[in-house]
């Protein structure tokens, strides 16, 4: 079979069904169904928009929850953070250096150490606060 024969056969395919089709009746039925269609279409649109809106609410609500949760976690992290935690990574020598530096700061002129006191254990609470304020600069 050559291409032409095949194409001619294809052209005839379905011709009986097409010949039997009552075009006017089909057009009439289509128009009648289209008259009924706008309400269904509106309903479909409403349903679609409702679904879209519901999906948006779920997505945005979920996103808000995630953000809020992450903020709470972040805040909790700040609250639970201690300066002492930073010292965990320091070696004994490094800790000694820190203490020496602190000692140096305390004994320096810039720090308001009460006269006659060389040991922190001898300071009362008010004096200790004054020392700490001076350390803050």
């Amino acid at each position, binding site marked *: 079979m050559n291409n032409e024969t095949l194409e001619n056969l294809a052209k005839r395919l379905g011709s009986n*069904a097409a010949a039997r089709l*009552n*075009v006017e009746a089909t057009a009439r039925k*289509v*128009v009648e169904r289209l008259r009924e269609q706008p309400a269904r279409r509106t309903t479909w649109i409403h349903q679609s928009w409702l679904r879209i809106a519901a999906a948006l609410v779920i997505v945005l609500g979920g996103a808000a929850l995630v953000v809020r949760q992450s903020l709470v976690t972040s805040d909790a992290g700040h609250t639970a953070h201690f300066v002492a935690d930073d010292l965990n990574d320091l070696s004994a020598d490094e800790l000694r250096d820190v203490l020496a530096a602190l000692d140096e700061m305390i004994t320096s002129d810039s720090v308001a150490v009460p006269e006659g006191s060389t040991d922190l254990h001898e300071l009362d609470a008010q004096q200790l606060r004054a020392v700490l304020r001076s350390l803050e600069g």
Partner: protein
Amino acid sequence: MAQPHMVPAAHDTALIAAWQAGDEQAAAELVGRHARPLARFLAGAGAPDADVDDLVQETFIRAFRGVDRFRGHCQFRTWLLTIGSNVLKDFGRRAARRKVMPLDDGVRDTTGDPHEHAEAREAEALLAAGLKQLPRLQREVFLLRAQQGLEYEEIAAALATTPGAARVHYHHAVRRLKETVK
């Protein structure tokens, strides 16, 4: 009721615009213009003869409902045929669930020479069977080209592919159909 003679020379796009403006006659005219080619296409693509009328209606309903999506990238008829292909696919799914029996030969046309008619029917049946075995895209391209006489550019625009790819699909379809219809 359709009165096609009211708008004899109107272009499809003018009729589409008229339908969008609420003119039911324009819709009826479009049905009158394209219903038979659509019926041939659907029957060629495997629609049972008894269901062709319903499928044609459903195709037009879908087309008119979604006419806002028609951008004129191809002819209205070509666009309609691709919708018909989707309608037929949905019909096939429903029929498979309901296990609809195939068309009874008794409802086919029996006029004319019985011998010629039998040969023609046999060849058509073989072709129809061969088409059913093809991948959907090959089947659509073959029908749009061989049955509807469309150019590859038009087919490509309707099926969102390239003319070269459409040509390849067509030749694959022809090669496979020749093996079926000898």
